[in-house]
């Protein structure tokens, strides 16, 4: 199919067919989620369940791909759904306007091969990790603050987030002071999308490692943590 010509041979035709059978949950449709959704829709993952309870605000415009001056006040998941349908109507979309919580996490994970953590607060990230452990779903975690980005892949049963967030009562981290920048979110999200595609295709990826990106210092560092 001509749509996928420029995917080849980095993604083979048989791998393209595999991606079409895969189902991914993207939790959060903001700075990270918008770009993850863009990448996964363009590479043509067969089914995307996109989840976010928020509407766009003016403060999202500095970085969130799906936000525009035209959709302020509108639900983020609707923008995500419209974007996916516009970019690649072959992708089936399930748009869920809700915040992830312990009560709905298992339902949101049901039937998905991979969950992508694009959330913006620590308690919800911990809920997702715990639910994914029970559901047996791998999580691709991403987080940003200022010029810094972090990515890791959490296999079911691993508890990498307790290393990153030792105090679960804290809701936010350094981003409260340093904000979130467009290129940091885009780079981190792109890396999350790449790790997701590798998982879906059975290619080796991050394992027991944290990938840290410092765009100010121009440093990428891979830290072994298990």
């Amino acid at each position: 199919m001509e749509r996928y010509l420029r995917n080849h041979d980095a993604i083979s035709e048989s791998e393209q067919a595999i991606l079409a059978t895969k189902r991914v949950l993207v939790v959060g449709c903001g700075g990270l989620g918008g770009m993850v959704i863009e990448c996964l829709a363009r590479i043509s993952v067969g089914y995307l369940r996109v989840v976010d309870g928020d509407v766009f605000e003016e403060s999202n415009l500095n970085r969130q791909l799906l936000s525009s001056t035209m959709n302020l006040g509108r639900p983020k998941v609707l923008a995500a759904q419209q974007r996916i349908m516009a970019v690649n109507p072959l992708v089936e979309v399930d748009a869920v306007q809700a915040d992830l919580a312990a009560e709905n996490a298992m339902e949101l994970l049901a039937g998905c091969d991979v969950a992508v953590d694009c959330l913006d607060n620590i308690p919800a990230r911990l809920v997702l990790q715990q639910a994914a452990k029970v559901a047996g779903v791998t999580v691709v975690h991403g987080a940003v603050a200022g010029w810094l980005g972090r990515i890791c892949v959490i296999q079911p049963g691993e508890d990498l987030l307790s290393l990153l967030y030792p105090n679960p009562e804290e809701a936010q981290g350094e981003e409260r002071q340093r904000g979130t920048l467009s290129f940091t979110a885009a780079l981190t999200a792109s890396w999350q999308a790449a790790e997701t595609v590798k998982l879906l295709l059975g290619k080796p990826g991050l394992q027991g490692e944290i990938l840290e990106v410092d765009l100010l210092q121009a440093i990428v560092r891979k830290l072994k943590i298990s």
Partner: protein
Amino acid sequence: MIKVNTEDYPWHPGMTVRNLLDEKQFTFRHIIVRVNGEFVSEEDYDKWLIQDGDDVLVLHLMAGG
């Protein structure tokens, strides 16, 4: 010699976690420190002595999306 985020770093006797953070200029407000995998809370930074050969992980706390 110690490891700080997988890289070699010179150790000196009496080196505390606080000394290391100051030397390496980790100035962010939200920092996570683990020495040989063990979490070091902020109130222990001044008294936690780093030993020669220790493996220190210093991470920024970040959760933005």
